Each structure stands twice: as C-alpha cells, then as structure tokens.
C-alpha cells in the first residue's frame, strides 16, 4: 500500500472555511420532516464525522451542505457566505461518493481534470494540477487507465483526487470506505487522516461505522431521526454519552442498559436487587460499559449464560434480573460455565439516563 507521499510541498492546500447550519430543515412532501430544524457549527479546518444508523438523515444533511439537495428551511453558511441557494459548483466544496461515481468512459486523468475543465481552466495549468494530485495520491502511473481497470483502493484514490484537485474549502465524504475490504479500509483511514492534516480543508465525513468515526474525527456529530443526539469529541462521546441512543451506538459490545428504580438511597432492579447507591427517586435507565464491570467479589449477583473467548479478552453474557448483561474481562480469567457471578459496578463508571427521554443525567454519580 502506497502511503501518501509527504515529501512534496503542499501544492494542494485549501483555504478552509467554517460551516454554520442554522435552522436547517428538510422535508420532501411538505408534511413529514426528514430533518427537523437543526443548528450546528463545524469549525474551519475541523474533521467532523456525521454518524448515525441508516435512515437517520445523515446523507440528506450532507447533500444539503453539498448543494445537491435544497434546504426546506434555514440557512447554511460557508465562512461569511450564505450558500444555501447556490449551485454545488458555486459553493466551493467537493465530494467523494460511496460508489466513487467515477465517469467510466474517461481516463483517470480526465476524471480528475473534469471539474477543472468545466471551470474553464487552461490545459497546461490543468495538467500541472492533476499531476500534483496524482503524485500526492500515488496515481501517477495510472493516469491513462480507465476506472474499470483499477482496483477498489485505486478507484477510491481517484475519487479523492477528483475532489481535492479543485482545492475546495469544504471536503465531503459520503461513506467512502464502505465498499473496501477490512485491511484496505484500515489503510485508507490512516491515509485520510494524513490527507486531512496536509490539505486542511473543513471535512465532513458521513458514515455508520463507529470505528471510522472514533479514529478520524476531531468531533463526531451523532444523528438520530434527523436530530442531533450529541456533537462532541470522540473521547467525550465515549465517556460521557448524552443519551441512551449514543451510549448504545458507540462501543463494541455496546453499553449495557438496565431499567432501575430509585428510592432516594439506592437503585434497584425490578426484582429488588440493589445495584448501587444513588439518592434519586423514580424510574431510570442505568448504563455501564462491558469493560467497566469488575468480576470476582462483589455485591451484585448474575448468572453466566455463555462466554466468547476472543483471544485478547473474553465477552461474558450474563443474566441480571432478566436483563442481558455483557461483560468484558481479560482473557484467561478463571470463570466456569453456568457459574454464578459476583460483580461490582464502580460508581464512577456508571451512567444514569432518564427513563422517558433517554437523556443523560449529568453528575448523578460524580458527587459521591
């Protein structure tokens, strides 16, 4: 695999601009809203990953930023410019598509040069730019080929080259790695991070893959049914999820969520077992990550159902008062099958969520 050639000077470097979304909404039929009014500010030069399950509106959001879809309401600004009514070409942004969308009848060179040709750039300049980009992406030897003669990874590079050749201030990626195999995906992730560092464009990257989000993003925007669940750094998203949705969406295996009731002193399961002290009243959802549960001596009893040994660690599935509880323990921990487990939930690792809305209740355990 050909890493990006870092020896050349940044011939391709964009003037990044912040993206500000104000009250942006989208509706196809005028009644049902795919995206309810939404506000967000993506800082200049930042790498933002828009993460969410399929159908959450993330592609629609990206297409509105790109100018491929009209906004139904609200404004989009690139820096000081309001762009929501401009054509894509007038916005100064470029996009890498999921299936690459290379023009099959054009050579690699023509594919990369096409936007410059449309913009009316003179040929010598065009050649110079395309060659610079090709060198940067390791495509120099492939310029005469047609997309059909390239491997998946090479096509991916051409699609990226086509996007960055115009030196866009805003660079958009629509699930660009989803068609690659695992190894290639890993390599491309590293290359993309490096590429972003070098060209510095404000980058929006849409994906449903949390690993891509965690590794690439400066900040992650988690979208659910068109609404922003949380918009924060990967670290904050992982350690301080703002809602049950975020908590369950990030992490593999996901965070355990069990319904609990508080009596002002402790939180209990439905069967009466006490899990942890907490001075709250009423119904809540309690969350704990599998790797945060301590196995061995402890007050909480759960029945082991089965275990998966993954080499580096083992995943235990246990029954906690009728709830499935996943526990990650170091490999080799001596636990028999059908054993009754004694567990400890360290209070600082617990997350409390509202039973109704699923929103996090901050500070519920930190005071103790």
């Amino acid at each position, binding site marked *: 695999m050909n890493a990006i050639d870092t020896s050349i000077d940044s011939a391709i470097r964009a003037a990044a601009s912040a993206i500000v979304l104000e009250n942006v909404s989208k509706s196809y039929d005028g009644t049902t809203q795919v995206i309810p009014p939404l506000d967000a500010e993506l800082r200049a030069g930042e790498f933002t990953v828009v993460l969410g399950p399929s159908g959450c509106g993330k592609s629609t959001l990206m*297409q509105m930023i*790109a*100018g*491929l879809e009209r906004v139904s309401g609200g404004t989009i600004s690139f820096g000081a410019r309001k762009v929501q009514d401009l*054509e*894509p*070409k007038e916005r100064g*942004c*470029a*996009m890498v*598509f*999921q*299936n*690459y*969308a*290379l*023009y*099959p*009848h054009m050579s690699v060179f023509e594919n990369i040069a*096409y*936007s410059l040709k*449309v*913009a009316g750039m003179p040929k010598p300049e065009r050649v110079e730019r395309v060659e610079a980009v090709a060198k940067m992406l390791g495509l120099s030897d492939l310029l005469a080929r047609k997309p059909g003669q390239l491997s998946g990874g090479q096509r991916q590079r051409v699609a990226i080259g*086509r*996007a960055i050749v115009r030196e866009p201030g805003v660079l958009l990626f*629509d699930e660009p790695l989803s068609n690659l195999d695992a190894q290639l995906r890993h390599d491309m992730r590293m290359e993309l991070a490096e590429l972003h560092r070098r060209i510095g464009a404000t980058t929006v990257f849409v994906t449903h893959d949390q690993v891509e989000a965690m590794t690439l993003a400066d900040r992650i925007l988690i979208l659910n049914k068109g609404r922003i669940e949380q918009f924060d750094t990967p670290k904050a998203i992982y350690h301080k999820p703002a809602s049950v949705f975020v908590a369950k969406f990030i992490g593999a295996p996901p965070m355990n969520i069990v319904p609990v009731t508080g009596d002002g002193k402790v939180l209990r399961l439905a069967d009466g077992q006490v899990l942890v002290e907490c001075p709250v009243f009423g119904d809540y959802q309690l969350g704990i990550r599998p790797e945060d549960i301590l196995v061995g001596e402890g007050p909480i009893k759960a029945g082991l159902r089965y275990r998966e040994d993954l080499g580096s660690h083992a995943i235990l599935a246990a029954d906690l008062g009728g709830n499935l509880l996943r526990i990650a323990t170091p490999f080799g921990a001596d636990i028999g099958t059908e054993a009754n487990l004694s567990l400890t939930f360290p209070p600082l690792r617990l997350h409390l969520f509202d039973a109704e809305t699923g929103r996090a209740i901050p500070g519920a355990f930190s005071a103790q």
Partner: protein
Amino acid sequence: MVENARSLNLVASAVLFLGMLYILGPLYLTLTTSTQSYEFMLRNGLVWYPGDQFFTNVIRIFSETRIPQQMANSLVVAVGDALVTCVLSFISAYALVFFPVRWGSVVFASILATIMLPLDIRVITTYQVASNVLSPINALLDIIGLNGLIAGVFGAPVVLEWSVLNTHFGLIAPLVAHGTGTFLFRQFFLVLPKDLVKAARMDGAGPIRFLFDILLPLSRPSFAALFVLTFLGGWTQYLWPLVASSTPNMQTAVVGLARLAPDMEGVMPDFPLIMAGAVVVSIIPLVMIAVLQRYLVRGLVLSEK
C-alpha cells in the same frame, strides 16, 4: 455437470437443424431462383441448384424497374427513422429521468401507449392527418369560435393546409411517433449509478454538459442497438409507405418489390426477376444484421424489459 442427456441433446440438435432449415430454406430458394431464367423456371419449376442468370436478372432489376430509386427512398426512410428516433427518444428519456418533471409519469405512459396500437391499425386516419397536418388547428379554431370571428371580420375563415403525403418527411414522421426508443433509453438511464449525476453536479457540470460529456458517451451501445432496430423497422415497413406515397418514385423498395408481380390472373409472374428483386431489396438489412448482430440482439432484449 456429469450427466447423460444424449437423447435430449440429439433431439435439440435436430430441432435447431430444422429451425435453421425453416429460416434458410426460403432464402436459399430465393437465391437459386434469382439465378434462373423465366423460361427455365416455367419448364422446371422450383430448383435447388443455382443457374447462371443472376447478373442478368439483377441488371434487369436495376435497368427495368424503379427499385434503384426506391432503394434510395428506403435508405432515406430507414436512416431518417433511425436517426430521428434515436435523438428524440434520447432527449425525451433524459428529460423524464433526470429532471423532476411534473406529470412525468403521465407523459411517459402516454408515450409508452404508442406500443399498444401500431401504425398499421390506425392507418386510415393517420393518412387523413398526414394529408393535412394542420387540420387539428383548423378544427380547434372552429370549435373555440375564433374562425367564425375571423370569417366575420376578414370575409373568410382560416383554413390552414399542409400535406406531408408523398414526401420523405411524411414517410418518416409517423414511424418516429413511437415509444420503444424512449422506453429503451429510460431503462438504461435508470440503471446508471445515481451518484453519477451528483458527481457531475459537484464537478460543476450543468444539465447540458452532463448530457454531452457523460450521458452521451455512456449511451453509445444503446444508441447502436436502437439504431439497428429502428433502421430495420423503417426498411421493412410496408403499409405506411404504400399509402403515404402516391407516385412510384416516392415508394420504398419493399413496396416496389411487391408491385413487381402483375395483378393479372392466369399469368405466371416472372419469379426469377422478382426473386432477384427480393435479394437486392433484402441485402442491405441482412448485411447489417450480419455485421451488427450483437447490437440487434441487445436492442431486442432491451426493448422488452
């Protein structure tokens, strides 16, 4: 697969052989008869071996009949039909697929409906329309009462007249008024990757640039398929060119060929001459099929889906 299907394969081979015989037999007999003289045919009837009069008969076709002129007409009609159909179908399908056209599905259904009622069924009134293409406008003026008004002011109603009968345009236009091409291109456009349009728009291409830079080059095989299909359709038309051309010089070759046989009872037609005519008339489309078979088959399959 390891399997013994000898009986089936023998039968299948026999079937294919008979099928080819059914197709090639008449064509072969056409060829052999075209090489005989009229007297030879009268004496021996139909024979399986070739004679030596082929060039004599072909020369007679070219010197004694109007088939050369009519072949030129056929060529104009077939090429015109194919070209105009390709271009108009292409841009119609483009408009219907890549733009949010209001009533787009209704327009498409109305275009597609043409497949249900071929020209041969509606030949009588199509002839009427072709004899005065502007007659609907006259009728419209009559109905809305504008003509009464005009007659009152200027002393005579407006009667527009434009006959396309006995013109190449008149021979071609009703053949083009057909939905297969639009259907074929639409199917092709719908299976193109959706992101292609988006990518083109991101690259700054507008609808016209997209049409010429991206869509047109990609559609080349579909063009070829539709061209071959409509060319053959135009060349082999019979009823429409028969009624739409009033002079032999405007008739197409197929009509001319059918007119070679005398209508008189009891006279044995000059079959060798007629068969030579059939060979001459069919040679262009047959060569086309031989050369462009790939595209013909593709066109036939595409026009069905």
